[in-house]
């Protein structure tokens, strides 16, 4: 690297990290990072589990029951519960993103209202789903 490029690099403006001491934690930035985290979480665990389940089902009753046994162990249940919340949250918040992309709901008040709706709706839906699937409802 030449001295010139090194100097240029040092002069580059850096955008401050949203999470950290530069910005006060805000609803919008927290939900934004949660959208990313839930997307990565769903990609790694949700998609893999879905493929695993489909393959087991396609292999017949024995393989399918083995898979169900594995998925009903308590660590798997915790994972499935978290995935359940993640998919509701990411999908609903994803719709919020798509609405922004059309240029709507960008005012802070509207964005925050939609954020609160997304949080309440995804938590409620996740709890109701877990209750239905668990046989309590």
């Amino acid at each position, binding site marked *: 690297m030449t001295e010139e490029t090194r100097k240029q690099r040092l002069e580059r403006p850096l955008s401050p990290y949203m999470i950290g001491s530069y910005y006060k934690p805000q609803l919008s930035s927290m939900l934004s990072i949660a959208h990313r985290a839930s997307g990565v979480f769903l990609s790694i665990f949700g998609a893999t589990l879905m493929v695993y389940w489909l393959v087991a089902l396609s292999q017949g009753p024995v393989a399918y029951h083995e898979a169900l046994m594995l998925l009903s162990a308590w660590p798997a249940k915790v994972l499935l519960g978290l995935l359940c919340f993640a998919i509701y949250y990411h999908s609903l918040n*994803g719709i919020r993103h*798509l609405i922004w992309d059309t240029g709507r709901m960008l005012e802070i008040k509207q964005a925050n209202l939609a954020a609160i709706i997304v949080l309440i709706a995804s938590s409620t839906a996740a709890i109701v789903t877990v209750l239905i699937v668990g046989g309590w409802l």
Partner: protein
Amino acid sequence: MNMRNPLANARGHGSAKSGTEHWWGQRVSALLMIPLIIWMLYTIIAIIGQPYQVVQVYFSQWINSVLAIALVLAMFRHIQLGLQVVIEDYVHSQPLETILQLLVKLFALAGTITALLAIIRLALQG
């Protein structure tokens, strides 16, 4: 002031001239998934606790095979585009970045093929 690394200029990175397609791909796959995820949630609630036979018959029906294939295609495309951006944002050292980008492509491809094969096998059992 030119703020770009000369090497990046030489390689043509920085602007890879594919940003718009990527952006649209992420949005189109997201839009497609809205009805498909609703179908998936309905499916989970409908088949949970049901005996194998019932689940197998469900997945041998035309409409369900078609929807399952559409979901797998949209989801893995969305995953590949999504994880690509996350890696671009956080991983700046080579060769790690290239390796991770290739792993993401491999993951999406392997997941798509495996899931489609399972869905087709189920469809043919009907």
